[in-house]
């Protein structure tokens, strides 16, 4: 149980004579008991940061503090962190019980106490029947449970999870995700998960740190990053199906109404009231709307976008409609019972309060 503070953290290293700045001035605080996700595409520096917290990687500059102590110079075993890595293999000749007990034995805990601890953790993770088995006899999901059990049995101040679910197949991944979330509510230790899967980060974390090219893009709750993305990168990275993003140019109609036109297409629609004063004529913007925030309406309403359906998909729970605009597709999702054929006319309305506008140069939210 401890707060984790990262101050001005930097990491540089040379690879093939090229200097790489993997983590750039990272500042971040995880409160006691919080579940934090480091989310980003591969090679963004999220794993490097995790490894620096664990002490497996040296720190170029900056400070990492766990429970009020700066741990920069502490040996990994002294930092009181628990690790469950994607490829952090179990010791094959040992049984599940011995694997979990390994860390406790290493610090000379008396055997009866070890048994009590292991049994408790095994029950929590529902692996009690597996305790006497060898790792080779376990399924992927079971191995991952044992892996996590081994990490939390020593009651770490900070639990570090590096892509713990990415090797599991779809169904297993989903049920493990639920279990992991539940587990955190029971053990309540400060936890950090590294993942490249945005749905995993959203589902599990109290707060998400979105990292790209070594730079923290946004740090906030799942709802914050979903509803108020700080920039275009976050907007495009969070959400499934992904946000529709188009370049639009503003202009004023003869009637005085401000309009956007999607570049390279005849599609025009009104600038939402909230942005009217801030939008400058002739200037390009990046316009974003989530597939769930586009409504299908009757043609009579104002501000609608009239177009034709290119593709219609019925996916059981929901339907997806795609409209081709230049090289891209405008997609929308609806849970309602609708049916369209390719080529059918359709009228769309963008939910005004859910429109995102980004600067076309630096990508920042307007």
């Amino acid at each position, binding site marked *: 149980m401890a707060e984790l503070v990262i101050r001005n953290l930097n990491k540089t*290293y*040379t*690879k*093939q*004579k090229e200097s790489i700045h993997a983590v750039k001035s990272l500042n971040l605080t995880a409160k006691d008991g919080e579940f934090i996700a480091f989310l980003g595409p591969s090679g963004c520096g999220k794993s490097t940061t995790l490894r620096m917290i664990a002490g497996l990687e040296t720190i170029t500059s900056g400070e990492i503090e766990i429970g009020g102590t700066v741990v920069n110079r502490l040996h990994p075993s002294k930092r009181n962190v628990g690790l469950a890595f994607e490829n952090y293999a179990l010791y094959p000749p040992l049984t599940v019980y011995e694997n979990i007990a390994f860390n406790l034995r290493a610090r000379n805990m008396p055997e009866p106490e070890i048994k009590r601890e292991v049994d408790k953790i095994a029950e929590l993770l529902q692996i009690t029947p597996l305790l006497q088995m060898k790792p080779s006899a376990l399924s992927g999901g079971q191995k991952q449970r044992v892996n996590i059990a081994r990490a939390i049995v020593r009651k770490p101040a900070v639990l570090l999870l590096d892509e713990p679910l990415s090797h599991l197949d779809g169904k297993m991944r989903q049920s493990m995700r639920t279990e992991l979330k539940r587990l955190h509510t029971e053990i309540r230790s400060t936890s950090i998960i590294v993942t490249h899967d945005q749905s995993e980060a959203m589902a599990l974390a109290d707060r998400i740190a979105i990292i790209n090219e070594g730079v923290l893009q946004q740090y906030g709750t799942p709802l914050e990053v979903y509803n108020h993305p700080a920039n275009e990168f976050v907007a495009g990275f969070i959400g499934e199906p992904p946000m529709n993003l188009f370049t639009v140019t503003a202009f004023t109609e003869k009637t005085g109404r401000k309009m956007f036109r999607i570049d390279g297409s005849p599609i025009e629609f009104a600038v939402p009231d909230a942005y009217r004063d801030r939008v400058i004529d002739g200037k390009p913007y990046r316009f974003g709307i989530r597939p769930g925030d586009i409504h299908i309406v009757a043609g009579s309403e104002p501000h609608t976008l009239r177009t034709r359906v290119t593709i219609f998909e019925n996916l059981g729970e929901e339907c997806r409609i795609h409209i081709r605009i230049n090289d891209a597709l405008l997609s929308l999702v609806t849970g309602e019972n609708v049916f369209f054929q390719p080529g059918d006319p359709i009228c769309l309305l963008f939910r005004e309060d859910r429109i995102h506008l980004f600067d076309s140069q630096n990508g920042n939210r307007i």
Partner: protein
Amino acid sequence: MGNTNPFSKLLKNAALLLYALFALFPLFWMILISFKHDREMFNTVFLFHPTLENYKVLFSSNEYIGYFLNNVYVSVGAVLVSIVVGVPAAYALARFDFKGKENLAFTFLSFRFAPELLVILPLFLIYQKIGLYDTYFGLIWVYQLISLPFIIWILRGYFEDISPEVEHAGRVDGYSWWRVFLKIIMPLIKPGLVAAALLSFIFVWNNFTFALLLAGQGVITTTVASLKYISSDTVHYGQMAAAVTISALPEVILALLIQKHLVRGLSMGAVKG
């Protein structure tokens, strides 16, 4: 993580230089004595009067050229036969699943473990009996022990690196198996084939034991021929060195020509994925 400290760099280079001197010295010494007169042979000073005398003696009769050509026939023949046999064998070991596959593959490799002297006596007797003693074919055949395992083991790795789907794609595209093999598979294994062929060529070319004991006066190779410079009263070190230098030339030239292939070919076959 690269260490850019200039001092450690210097140290590293000095160590490498030292090793290079150590490794190349015998070669250097051999070339040196090939240019020495017999009378200066035992001087250990580096100053001497260079002479081409040894080379002149070597080429004064056609004998040496004959030995050289013998070695070419036998080595090239052995490598060619190995390629013809080894490529399909390596392909089969990589692609097909059959009983005793790993044992078979290991048996090929084990040819390289056994000391040549172990098998030479029975082979000598058999060769005498069936008339292969002192023939080109006899040597080419026995050299398969050396060249075949190389070709099979290096190429097997190459074939395993090519996903079977690539072959399937070729079939579906309308090519027969043979055409797929020639048009798609062969270009992909070329670096490995070149490297394996060159390596086995070098080993065969340098072989002494088989050439000495399984051939008589008919098929003398350069390695065996170097013995001729040891006469009853003296050893013509100068001529011997010249002969050996000449016989090493083809290997050196070949290795330099396909150096790129060689390094890439060997490392690719070994490190998969």
